[in-house]
Protein backbone atom coordinates (compact mmCIF):
# COMPACT_ATOMS: atom_id res chain seq x y z
CA UNK A 1 0.00 0.00 0.00
CA UNK A 2 2.84 2.46 0.86
CA UNK A 3 4.37 2.21 -2.59
CA UNK A 4 1.02 2.85 -4.27
CA UNK A 5 0.47 5.99 -2.18
CA UNK A 6 4.04 7.25 -2.75
CA UNK A 7 3.58 6.66 -6.47
CA UNK A 8 0.51 8.93 -6.39
CA UNK A 9 2.53 11.69 -4.71
CA UNK A 10 5.42 11.35 -7.15
CA UNK A 11 3.24 11.32 -10.25
CA UNK A 12 4.34 14.43 -12.12
CA UNK A 13 1.92 13.76 -14.95
CA UNK A 14 -1.22 14.03 -12.85
CA UNK A 15 -3.97 15.02 -15.24
CA UNK A 16 -5.19 18.57 -14.76
CA UNK A 17 -8.96 18.47 -15.03
CA UNK A 18 -10.76 21.47 -16.46
CA UNK A 19 -13.25 23.17 -14.13
CA UNK A 20 -15.58 24.22 -16.94
CA UNK A 21 -18.22 21.67 -15.86
CA UNK A 22 -18.39 23.01 -12.29
CA UNK A 23 -17.51 26.71 -12.55
CA UNK A 24 -21.18 27.77 -12.88
CA UNK A 25 -21.95 25.95 -9.62
CA UNK A 26 -19.42 27.82 -7.48
CA UNK A 27 -21.37 30.26 -5.34
CA UNK A 28 -18.50 31.58 -3.24
CA UNK A 29 -15.78 30.46 -0.90
CA UNK A 30 -15.55 29.41 2.73
CA UNK A 31 -12.63 30.51 4.87
CA UNK A 32 -11.20 27.54 6.69
CA UNK A 33 -8.10 26.63 8.64
CA UNK A 34 -6.52 25.39 5.42
CA UNK A 35 -7.49 28.39 3.30
CA UNK A 36 -10.39 29.17 1.01
CA UNK A 37 -12.59 26.30 -0.09
CA UNK A 38 -15.01 26.57 -3.00
CA UNK A 39 -18.64 26.53 -2.07
CA UNK A 40 -20.94 24.85 -4.58
CA UNK A 41 -24.67 25.16 -4.91
CA UNK A 42 -27.12 22.28 -4.55
CA UNK A 43 -29.30 23.61 -7.36
CA UNK A 44 -29.51 22.04 -10.79
CA UNK A 45 -29.20 24.66 -13.49
CA UNK A 46 -30.18 24.24 -17.13
CA UNK A 47 -26.59 23.32 -17.99
CA UNK A 48 -26.68 20.42 -15.49
CA UNK A 49 -29.97 19.05 -16.80
CA UNK A 50 -28.82 19.24 -20.42
CA UNK A 51 -25.52 17.65 -19.44
CA UNK A 52 -27.32 14.80 -17.67
CA UNK A 53 -29.56 14.12 -20.68
CA UNK A 54 -26.56 14.24 -22.99
CA UNK A 55 -24.44 11.71 -21.06
CA UNK A 56 -27.45 9.42 -20.55
CA UNK A 57 -27.66 9.34 -24.35
CA UNK A 58 -23.96 8.62 -24.57
CA UNK A 59 -22.69 12.02 -25.75
CA UNK A 60 -19.71 13.60 -24.00
CA UNK A 61 -19.76 10.81 -21.46
CA UNK A 62 -15.99 10.30 -21.36
CA UNK A 63 -15.15 13.90 -20.54
CA UNK A 64 -17.93 14.65 -18.05
CA UNK A 65 -15.67 15.19 -15.08
CA UNK A 66 -14.80 17.75 -12.44
CA UNK A 67 -11.54 18.64 -10.65
CA UNK A 68 -10.72 16.66 -7.51
CA UNK A 69 -10.39 18.05 -4.01
CA UNK A 70 -12.50 19.54 -1.24
CA UNK A 71 -15.74 21.43 -1.81
CA UNK A 72 -18.27 22.88 0.61
CA UNK A 73 -22.02 22.30 0.40
CA UNK A 74 -24.08 24.55 2.66
CA UNK A 75 -22.01 26.13 5.42
CA UNK A 76 -19.85 23.37 6.86
CA UNK A 77 -17.45 23.91 9.78
CA UNK A 78 -14.74 21.86 11.44
CA UNK A 79 -17.33 19.48 12.92
CA UNK A 80 -19.21 18.81 9.69
CA UNK A 81 -19.26 15.36 8.03
CA UNK A 82 -16.95 14.60 5.12
CA UNK A 83 -18.45 12.71 2.19
CA UNK A 84 -16.24 11.09 -0.41
CA UNK A 85 -17.40 10.77 -4.01
CA UNK A 86 -16.28 10.23 -7.61
CA UNK A 87 -15.37 12.99 -10.05
CA UNK A 88 -18.04 12.02 -12.58
CA UNK A 89 -20.09 15.21 -12.92
CA UNK A 90 -23.42 13.36 -12.90
CA UNK A 91 -22.49 11.63 -9.65
CA UNK A 92 -21.67 14.96 -8.04
CA UNK A 93 -24.97 16.38 -9.33
CA UNK A 94 -27.00 13.65 -7.64
CA UNK A 95 -25.06 14.07 -4.40
CA UNK A 96 -25.51 17.87 -4.48
CA UNK A 97 -29.20 17.60 -5.14
CA UNK A 98 -29.94 14.86 -2.62
CA UNK A 99 -28.19 16.44 0.35
CA UNK A 100 -29.56 19.94 -0.09
CA UNK A 101 -29.94 21.77 3.20
CA UNK A 102 -27.12 19.93 4.94
CA UNK A 103 -23.72 21.43 5.76
CA UNK A 104 -21.07 19.00 4.61
CA UNK A 105 -17.63 18.75 3.05
CA UNK A 106 -17.34 16.85 -0.19
CA UNK A 107 -14.04 15.19 -1.01
CA UNK A 108 -13.95 14.43 -4.72
CA UNK A 109 -11.41 11.83 -5.76
CA UNK A 110 -10.06 11.07 -9.22
CA UNK A 111 -12.03 8.24 -10.78
CA UNK A 112 -11.28 9.41 -14.34
CA UNK A 113 -14.82 10.71 -14.68
CA UNK A 114 -16.43 7.35 -13.93
CA UNK A 115 -19.26 6.72 -11.45
CA UNK A 116 -18.49 5.23 -8.03
CA UNK A 117 -19.52 1.61 -8.64
CA UNK A 118 -17.82 1.16 -12.00
CA UNK A 119 -14.74 3.03 -10.77
CA UNK A 120 -14.54 0.74 -7.72
CA UNK A 121 -14.71 -2.28 -10.02
CA UNK A 122 -12.00 -0.87 -12.25
CA UNK A 123 -9.80 0.13 -9.33
CA UNK A 124 -9.81 3.93 -9.62
CA UNK A 125 -12.16 4.49 -6.69
CA UNK A 126 -9.43 3.04 -4.52
CA UNK A 127 -7.89 2.99 -1.07
CA UNK A 128 -4.72 4.71 -2.28
CA UNK A 129 -6.61 7.46 -4.13
CA UNK A 130 -8.67 8.24 -1.02
CA UNK A 131 -5.56 8.29 1.19
CA UNK A 132 -3.76 10.47 -1.36
CA UNK A 133 -6.59 13.02 -1.52
CA UNK A 134 -6.96 13.11 2.28
CA UNK A 135 -3.26 13.90 2.65
CA UNK A 136 -3.06 16.26 -0.31
CA UNK A 137 -6.06 18.28 0.89
CA UNK A 138 -4.83 18.26 4.51
CA UNK A 139 -8.20 17.02 5.69
CA UNK A 140 -6.83 16.43 9.20
CA UNK A 141 -6.36 20.20 9.56
CA UNK A 142 -9.79 21.06 8.21
CA UNK A 143 -11.92 18.96 10.56
CA UNK A 144 -11.74 18.11 14.25
CA UNK A 145 -13.23 14.66 13.89
CA UNK A 146 -11.64 11.62 12.21
CA UNK A 147 -14.50 10.17 10.24
CA UNK A 148 -15.23 9.77 6.53
CA UNK A 149 -18.39 8.67 4.81
CA UNK A 150 -17.86 6.59 1.69
CA UNK A 151 -20.56 5.53 -0.74
CA UNK A 152 -21.29 1.85 -0.14
CA UNK A 153 -20.75 1.04 -3.80
CA UNK A 154 -17.15 2.22 -3.47
CA UNK A 155 -16.48 -0.81 -1.28
CA UNK A 156 -15.35 -3.16 -4.10
CA UNK A 157 -12.36 -0.85 -4.59
CA UNK A 158 -11.61 0.16 -1.02
CA UNK A 159 -10.13 -1.42 2.07
CA UNK A 160 -11.65 0.75 4.78
CA UNK A 161 -9.28 -0.52 7.49
CA UNK A 162 -6.26 0.60 5.45
CA UNK A 163 -7.58 4.17 5.32
CA UNK A 164 -7.67 4.17 9.13
CA UNK A 165 -4.17 2.77 9.29
CA UNK A 166 -2.62 5.40 7.01
CA UNK A 167 -4.66 8.51 7.79
CA UNK A 168 -6.32 8.00 11.17
CA UNK A 169 -9.72 8.50 9.54
CA UNK A 170 -12.37 5.85 10.14
CA UNK A 171 -14.22 5.20 6.90
CA UNK A 172 -17.91 4.45 7.29
CA UNK A 173 -19.86 3.01 4.41
CA UNK A 174 -22.95 5.06 3.77
CA UNK A 175 -25.99 4.12 1.72
CA UNK A 176 -25.97 2.89 -1.88
CA UNK A 177 -28.03 5.83 -3.14
CA UNK A 178 -27.33 9.49 -2.44
CA UNK A 179 -31.09 9.81 -1.85
CA UNK A 180 -30.59 8.08 1.51
CA UNK A 181 -27.66 10.16 2.76
CA UNK A 182 -29.87 12.46 4.84
CA UNK A 183 -31.69 9.54 6.46
CA UNK A 184 -28.36 7.78 7.00
CA UNK A 185 -26.88 10.77 8.84
CA UNK A 186 -30.03 11.11 10.93
CA UNK A 187 -29.80 7.41 11.77
CA UNK A 188 -26.39 7.92 13.48
CA UNK A 189 -24.48 6.78 10.39
CA UNK A 190 -26.16 3.40 10.28
CA UNK A 191 -27.34 2.22 6.88
CA UNK A 192 -30.52 0.19 7.09
CA UNK A 193 -30.93 -3.04 5.10
CA UNK A 194 -33.00 -1.15 2.54
CA UNK A 195 -30.31 1.51 2.12
CA UNK A 196 -27.66 -1.15 1.49
CA UNK A 197 -29.52 -2.94 -1.28
CA UNK A 198 -28.91 -2.31 -4.97
CA UNK A 199 -32.16 -2.25 -6.86
CA UNK A 200 -32.81 -2.48 -10.56
CA UNK A 201 -36.28 -1.07 -10.94
CA UNK A 202 -38.06 -0.13 -14.14
CA UNK A 203 -36.69 3.42 -14.21
CA UNK A 204 -33.13 2.15 -13.56
CA UNK A 205 -33.43 -0.37 -16.36
CA UNK A 206 -34.93 2.08 -18.80
CA UNK A 207 -32.24 4.67 -18.06
CA UNK A 208 -29.41 2.32 -19.01
CA UNK A 209 -31.40 0.77 -21.84
CA UNK A 210 -31.62 4.10 -23.68
CA UNK A 211 -27.83 4.24 -23.80
CA UNK A 212 -27.79 0.67 -25.14
CA UNK A 213 -30.21 1.68 -27.89
CA UNK A 214 -28.02 4.61 -28.94
CA UNK A 215 -25.03 2.28 -29.11
CA UNK A 216 -26.76 -0.55 -30.96
CA UNK A 217 -28.68 1.49 -33.52
CA UNK A 218 -25.43 1.70 -35.52
CA UNK A 219 -25.91 -1.99 -36.35
CA UNK A 220 -28.79 -1.04 -38.59
CA UNK A 221 -26.70 0.54 -41.36
CA UNK A 222 -24.66 -2.66 -41.72
CA UNK A 223 -27.78 -4.78 -41.81
CA UNK A 224 -29.36 -2.52 -44.43
CA UNK A 225 -26.23 -2.68 -46.58
CA UNK A 226 -26.13 -6.47 -46.35
CA UNK A 227 -29.78 -6.80 -47.31
CA UNK A 228 -29.35 -4.30 -50.14
CA UNK A 229 -26.40 -6.21 -51.61
CA UNK A 230 -28.19 -9.57 -51.51
CA UNK A 231 -31.35 -7.99 -52.95
CA UNK A 232 -29.43 -6.38 -55.83
CA UNK A 233 -27.96 -9.74 -56.85
CA UNK A 234 -30.89 -12.07 -56.20
CA UNK A 235 -33.92 -10.07 -57.41
CA UNK A 236 -32.63 -9.40 -60.91
CA UNK A 237 -36.09 -8.91 -62.41
CA UNK A 238 -36.70 -5.66 -60.42
CA UNK A 239 -35.36 -2.24 -61.30
CA UNK A 240 -32.90 -0.39 -59.07
CA UNK A 241 -35.48 1.74 -57.28
CA UNK A 242 -37.64 -1.28 -56.44
CA UNK A 243 -34.60 -3.13 -55.09
CA UNK A 244 -33.76 -0.20 -52.84
CA UNK A 245 -37.37 -0.04 -51.63
CA UNK A 246 -37.44 -3.79 -50.94
CA UNK A 247 -34.17 -3.61 -48.99
CA UNK A 248 -35.45 -0.64 -47.00
CA UNK A 249 -38.68 -2.41 -46.09
CA UNK A 250 -36.79 -5.63 -45.33
CA UNK A 251 -34.69 -3.68 -42.83
CA UNK A 252 -37.64 -2.34 -40.80
CA UNK A 253 -38.08 -5.55 -38.76
CA UNK A 254 -34.41 -5.24 -37.79
CA UNK A 255 -34.97 -1.72 -36.49
CA UNK A 256 -37.77 -3.14 -34.35
CA UNK A 257 -35.49 -6.03 -33.33
CA UNK A 258 -32.86 -3.57 -32.12
CA UNK A 259 -35.50 -1.70 -30.12
CA UNK A 260 -36.80 -4.99 -28.68
CA UNK A 261 -33.28 -6.14 -27.78
CA UNK A 262 -32.07 -2.92 -26.22
CA UNK A 263 -35.29 -1.51 -24.70
CA UNK A 264 -37.92 -4.22 -24.30
CA UNK A 265 -35.68 -6.99 -23.00
CA UNK A 266 -34.43 -4.67 -20.20
CA UNK A 267 -37.91 -3.30 -19.55
CA UNK A 268 -39.59 -6.71 -19.32
CA UNK A 269 -36.60 -8.40 -17.65
CA UNK A 270 -38.38 -9.44 -14.41
CA UNK A 271 -41.49 -10.58 -16.27
CA UNK A 272 -39.96 -12.85 -18.91
CA UNK A 273 -39.35 -16.39 -17.63
CA UNK A 274 -35.86 -17.99 -17.49
CA UNK A 275 -32.71 -16.70 -15.77
CA UNK A 276 -30.32 -16.24 -18.66
CA UNK A 277 -30.56 -12.89 -20.42
CA UNK A 278 -30.02 -14.52 -23.81
CA UNK A 279 -32.89 -16.94 -23.23
CA UNK A 280 -35.17 -14.12 -22.04
CA UNK A 281 -34.26 -12.31 -25.26
CA UNK A 282 -34.92 -15.48 -27.25
CA UNK A 283 -38.51 -15.51 -25.97
CA UNK A 284 -39.12 -12.04 -27.40
CA UNK A 285 -37.17 -12.94 -30.54
CA UNK A 286 -39.44 -15.92 -31.26
CA UNK A 287 -42.54 -13.76 -30.73
CA UNK A 288 -41.24 -11.04 -33.05
CA UNK A 289 -40.26 -13.63 -35.69
CA UNK A 290 -43.83 -14.96 -35.68
CA UNK A 291 -45.22 -11.46 -36.22
CA UNK A 292 -42.79 -10.76 -39.06
CA UNK A 293 -43.57 -14.06 -40.82
CA UNK A 294 -47.29 -13.53 -40.36
CA UNK A 295 -47.07 -10.06 -41.96
CA UNK A 296 -44.20 -10.78 -44.36
CA UNK A 297 -45.87 -8.86 -47.21
CA UNK A 298 -45.89 -5.67 -45.14
CA UNK A 299 -42.10 -5.77 -44.95
CA UNK A 300 -41.82 -6.88 -48.61
CA UNK A 301 -40.17 -10.21 -47.79
CA UNK A 302 -40.18 -12.58 -50.74
CA UNK A 303 -42.18 -15.72 -50.10
CA UNK A 304 -39.25 -18.09 -50.24
CA UNK A 305 -38.36 -20.44 -47.39
CA UNK A 306 -34.66 -19.56 -47.60
CA UNK A 307 -35.22 -15.81 -47.36
CA UNK A 308 -37.73 -16.18 -44.53
CA UNK A 309 -35.52 -18.60 -42.58
CA UNK A 310 -32.54 -16.31 -43.07
CA UNK A 311 -34.46 -13.33 -41.65
CA UNK A 312 -35.87 -15.29 -38.71
CA UNK A 313 -32.29 -16.33 -37.86
CA UNK A 314 -31.03 -12.78 -38.41
CA UNK A 315 -33.73 -11.10 -36.31
CA UNK A 316 -33.33 -13.68 -33.55
CA UNK A 317 -29.55 -13.22 -33.49
CA UNK A 318 -29.84 -9.44 -33.16
CA UNK A 319 -32.29 -9.64 -30.24
CA UNK A 320 -30.41 -12.42 -28.43
CA UNK A 321 -27.08 -10.65 -28.85
CA UNK A 322 -28.47 -7.39 -27.43
CA UNK A 323 -30.12 -9.30 -24.58
CA UNK A 324 -26.83 -10.97 -23.70
CA UNK A 325 -25.11 -7.60 -23.97
CA UNK A 326 -27.45 -6.15 -21.35
CA UNK A 327 -25.87 -8.34 -18.66
CA UNK A 328 -23.13 -5.68 -18.69
CA UNK A 329 -25.60 -2.96 -17.68
CA UNK A 330 -27.47 -4.98 -15.08
CA UNK A 331 -26.85 -4.86 -11.34
CA UNK A 332 -27.53 -8.41 -10.21
CA UNK A 333 -25.30 -10.69 -12.31
CA UNK A 334 -21.96 -12.24 -11.42
CA UNK A 335 -18.96 -12.44 -13.69
CA UNK A 336 -18.97 -16.25 -13.47
CA UNK A 337 -22.65 -16.35 -14.43
CA UNK A 338 -22.19 -14.05 -17.40
CA UNK A 339 -19.16 -16.07 -18.48
CA UNK A 340 -21.19 -19.27 -18.41
CA UNK A 341 -24.03 -17.65 -20.34
CA UNK A 342 -21.69 -16.15 -22.93
CA UNK A 343 -19.89 -19.44 -23.53
CA UNK A 344 -23.25 -21.12 -24.16
CA UNK A 345 -24.73 -18.36 -26.32
CA UNK A 346 -21.95 -17.11 -28.60
CA UNK A 347 -21.36 -20.40 -30.52
CA UNK A 348 -25.10 -20.67 -31.21
CA UNK A 349 -25.18 -17.06 -32.41
CA UNK A 350 -22.21 -17.57 -34.71
CA UNK A 351 -23.84 -20.62 -36.31
CA UNK A 352 -27.18 -18.80 -36.67
CA UNK A 353 -25.65 -15.73 -38.31
CA UNK A 354 -23.53 -17.88 -40.60
CA UNK A 355 -26.58 -19.91 -41.67
CA UNK A 356 -28.59 -16.75 -42.20
CA UNK A 357 -25.92 -15.28 -44.49
CA UNK A 358 -25.44 -18.57 -46.32
CA UNK A 359 -29.17 -18.80 -47.07
CA UNK A 360 -29.32 -15.22 -48.39
CA UNK A 361 -26.25 -15.76 -50.56
CA UNK A 362 -27.56 -19.10 -51.85
CA UNK A 363 -30.64 -17.25 -53.11
CA UNK A 364 -28.35 -15.28 -55.46
CA UNK A 365 -27.14 -18.40 -57.23
CA UNK A 366 -30.09 -20.77 -57.21
Amino acid at each position, binding site marked *: MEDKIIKKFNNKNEESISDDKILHLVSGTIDSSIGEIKKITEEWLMKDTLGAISVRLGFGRDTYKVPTGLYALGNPNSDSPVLVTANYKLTLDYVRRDINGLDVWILIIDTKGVNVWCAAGKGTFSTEEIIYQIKKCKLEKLVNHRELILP*QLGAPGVEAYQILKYTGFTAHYGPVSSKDIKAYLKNNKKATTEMRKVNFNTVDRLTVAVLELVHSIKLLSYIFLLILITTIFSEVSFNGYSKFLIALNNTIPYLVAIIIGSIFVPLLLPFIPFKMFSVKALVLAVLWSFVVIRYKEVFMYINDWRVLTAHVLGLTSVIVYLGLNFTGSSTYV*SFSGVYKETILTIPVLVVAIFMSLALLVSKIFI
Partner: protein
Amino acid sequence: MTMTYLRNVAKISLKTEKCIGCGICVNVCPHEVFIVNNRKAVLKYKDNCIECGACDKNCPFKAIEVKAGVG
Protein backbone atom coordinates in the same frame (compact mmCIF):
# COMPACT_ATOMS: atom_id res chain seq x y z
CA MET B 1 -39.30 -7.29 -7.45
CA THR B 2 -36.04 -9.08 -6.65
CA MET B 3 -34.41 -10.69 -9.64
CA THR B 4 -32.03 -13.61 -9.29
CA TYR B 5 -29.45 -14.86 -11.74
CA LEU B 6 -27.91 -18.28 -12.40
CA ARG B 7 -27.54 -20.63 -9.44
CA ASN B 8 -24.34 -22.24 -8.18
CA VAL B 9 -21.95 -20.16 -10.27
CA ALA B 10 -20.76 -17.40 -7.91
CA LYS B 11 -17.22 -17.99 -6.73
CA ILE B 12 -17.33 -16.86 -3.13
CA SER B 13 -16.00 -18.69 -0.09
CA LEU B 14 -15.93 -17.95 3.59
CA LYS B 15 -13.39 -19.28 6.09
CA THR B 16 -15.51 -19.31 9.21
CA GLU B 17 -12.54 -20.02 11.50
CA LYS B 18 -11.01 -16.62 10.59
CA CYS B 19 -14.27 -14.67 11.04
CA ILE B 20 -14.83 -12.68 14.20
CA GLY B 21 -18.33 -11.54 13.24
CA CYS B 22 -17.55 -7.82 12.85
CA GLY B 23 -20.25 -7.55 10.20
CA ILE B 24 -18.43 -5.35 7.68
CA CYS B 25 -19.36 -7.88 4.97
CA VAL B 26 -23.03 -7.34 5.78
CA ASN B 27 -22.49 -3.57 5.51
CA VAL B 28 -20.76 -3.58 2.13
CA CYS B 29 -22.76 -6.30 0.35
CA PRO B 30 -25.30 -4.84 -2.12
CA HIS B 31 -27.30 -8.07 -2.34
CA GLU B 32 -27.74 -9.27 1.25
CA VAL B 33 -25.57 -12.34 0.80
CA PHE B 34 -24.43 -12.42 4.43
CA ILE B 35 -25.95 -12.54 7.85
CA VAL B 36 -24.07 -12.66 11.14
CA ASN B 37 -25.23 -15.44 13.42
CA ASN B 38 -23.62 -16.23 16.80
CA ARG B 39 -20.65 -13.92 16.07
CA LYS B 40 -19.90 -15.61 12.75
CA ALA B 41 -20.75 -14.50 9.22
CA VAL B 42 -22.86 -16.94 7.23
CA LEU B 43 -23.30 -17.07 3.44
CA LYS B 44 -27.07 -17.03 3.59
CA TYR B 45 -27.93 -16.20 -0.03
CA LYS B 46 -24.86 -17.31 -1.94
CA ASP B 47 -26.69 -17.27 -5.28
CA ASN B 48 -27.34 -13.54 -4.88
CA CYS B 49 -23.60 -12.85 -5.02
CA ILE B 50 -22.47 -10.75 -7.99
CA GLU B 51 -18.76 -11.21 -7.23
CA CYS B 52 -18.18 -7.47 -6.78
CA GLY B 53 -15.50 -8.28 -4.23
CA ALA B 54 -16.51 -5.64 -1.66
CA CYS B 55 -16.59 -8.16 1.22
CA ASP B 56 -13.29 -9.74 0.22
CA LYS B 57 -11.58 -6.35 0.07
CA ASN B 58 -12.99 -5.03 3.32
CA CYS B 59 -12.69 -8.08 5.55
CA PRO B 60 -9.90 -7.16 7.96
CA PHE B 61 -9.25 -10.85 8.69
CA LYS B 62 -9.15 -12.10 5.11
CA ALA B 63 -11.89 -14.60 5.85
CA ILE B 64 -13.70 -14.12 2.53
CA GLU B 65 -12.45 -14.94 -0.92
CA VAL B 66 -14.21 -13.76 -4.08
CA LYS B 67 -13.08 -14.19 -7.63
CA ALA B 68 -14.04 -10.63 -8.57
CA GLY B 69 -14.82 -9.59 -12.11
CA VAL B 70 -14.72 -6.06 -13.45
CA GLY B 71 -17.60 -4.00 -12.05
